């Protein structure tokens, strides 16, 4: 992957701004949801879906498409906004988020939503599923890559570390994981609740190739993904340092915004901030 141009960075910045508005609008209209973790992961999704992944909404189930498992499923409004923008389903669906009969469930549902590769919501399970997809690519001699995104609070789940051993044992270099390292879970800062740190050292000790980046810097993200995808012999964990609630000043780094919808006044304030 070559160095990223200033024009590309600007293109992604504008795209992310539009998608952040979609995310906030969806959660506002739904009256519930998880803005904090959706906004922290959004820039990672933007880089993956607009610059990296080999996907085509016209042939949604192409067996050779790249896969994405959003293991921290509660952040799905960000993914839904991206999938709608990419044309996997009509943007009008976004207004039905979390409503009865909607194809857009409160947590990702691979049987209801086009473009979702794995149902998630119960934390800690996504990396195992991603390992399965990466093993399948190898068995099928397919060149697709599997991407998986974990939360830092989610890293407290034991299954994450069982799966970490699996990916390293099978040398799944066709798999790239991201850690959305925003420092917060629901009950507080992860280091206060039950520290999973030092995370980079743990992943390294588990046999992974580890990179650390600013998870809101498109150029760094793209560069890291390039390095991950060309690395041979081990899976790569990209530890993305992020800000929970990124982009909306009063949501940034606030646990209160993990899982609640903005009221009308907060919604308008958020939209106004995203104009700039």
């Amino acid at each position, binding site marked *: 992957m070559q160095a990223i141009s200033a024009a590309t960075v600007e293109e992604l910045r504008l795209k992310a701004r539009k998608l952040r508005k979609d995310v906030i609008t969806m959660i506002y209209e739904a009256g519930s949801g998880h803005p904090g973790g959706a906004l922290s992961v959004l820039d990672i999704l933007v880089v993956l879906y607009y610059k990296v992944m080999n996907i085509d909404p016209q042939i949604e189930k192409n067996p050779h498409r790249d896969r994405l498992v959003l293991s921290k499923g509660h952040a799905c409004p960000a993914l839904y906004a991206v999938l709608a923008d990419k044309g996997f389903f009509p943007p009008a669906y976004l207004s039905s988020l979390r409503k009865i009969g909607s194809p857009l469930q409160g947590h990702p549902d691979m049987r209801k939503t086009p473009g979702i590769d794995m149902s998630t919501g*119960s934390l800690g399970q996504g990396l195992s599923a991603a390992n399965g997809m990466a093993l399948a690519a190898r068995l099928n001699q397919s060149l697709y890559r599997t991407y998986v995104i974990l939360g830092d609070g989610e890293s407290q789940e034991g299954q994450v570390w069982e799966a970490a051993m699996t990916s390293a044992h099978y040398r799944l270099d066709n798999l790239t994981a991201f850690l959305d390292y925003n420092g917060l879970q629901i009950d507080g800062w992860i280091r206060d609740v039950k520290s999973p740190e030092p995370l980079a050292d743990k992943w390294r000790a588990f046999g992974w190739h580890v990179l650390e980046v600013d998870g809101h810097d498109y150029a760094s993200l793209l560069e890291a993904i390039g390095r991950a995808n060309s690395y041979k012999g081990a899976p790569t964990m990209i530890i993305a340092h992020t800000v929970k609630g990124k982009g909306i000043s009063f949501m940034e780094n606030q646990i209160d915004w993990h899982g609640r919808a903005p009221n009308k006044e907060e919604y308008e304030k958020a939209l106004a901030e995203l104009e700039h």
Partner: protein
Amino acid sequence: MREEMATREAYGKALVKLGRNNSKVVVLDADLSKSTKTVLFAEEFPLRFFDMGVAEADMMGTAAGLAASGFIPYVSTFGVFATGRVYDQIRSSIAYTKLNVKIAASHTGITVGEDGASHQSIEDIALMRVLPNMTVVVPADAQQTCLAVEAAAKHEGPVYLRLGRPKVPPVIPEGLPFELGKAQLLREGDDLVFIAAGITVKLALEAASLMEGQGISAAVVNVHTIKPLDEALLLQLAQKTGAIVTAEEHSVIGGLGGAVAELISENYPVPVMRVGINDCFGESGSPKELLQKYGLTAEKMVAAGRAALEKKARVY
């Protein structure tokens, strides 16, 4: 607590009271303390509260160790994560060992609402009921939750307490005695009996009133303890009425309906109709819409009552 209140809220308050009276009570949560309301206990007793992070399996095992060392752990998270997510930890370290762990699961059933199927436990009663040594309690309102929290502390051995997210009105008459394993006859009736637990108790009372208007006399019993089941009272009601409808915010397989059908078919076979979630997962939506869509309404219970009466007429 004679007010409209979520059972999880009543649980949080009852825990604080229990903590003041019993220094052996400790509380564990898995990063959901504000939702399960164990945060109230954490604020007053920070040293006796352990936030285990998003690590439910570890939480169950830790609780087992605390119980094996003389403490009375109350362990809380959402119903799906308090049961299926940690099933073998409960089975091996808590049920098999008969340890004094109280699993208080909030956000059970479909009234979890908008979070959707991944967060709606519709199988937790079945999972817990099948474990030897486990006591399974489903309180019907806030007041009953407080009584259940206290009774669980006095009971030696594992207890599963099933709690809900939305506010519920008081349904159990003030002063009615509460004893684990003793069901409560809330309304007498001759033709039919509604056997309910949790939020369906109120629906059963409504259904019985509707049927009274149609000249049918229906009894209502609150089975707050699904295991051990109050076999004596339920068999007596089966004999008296000859027709049964069970109702629960749970799969029709393996829960209250399953327990009653097992008891009745072996001891006094009469028609049993089960109202509940019909072997499918839920979805996102408001609790009210979901109850309607998945058939948990007084009207559906009346229809089941009529079906039970028809079968009874055919059988005898």
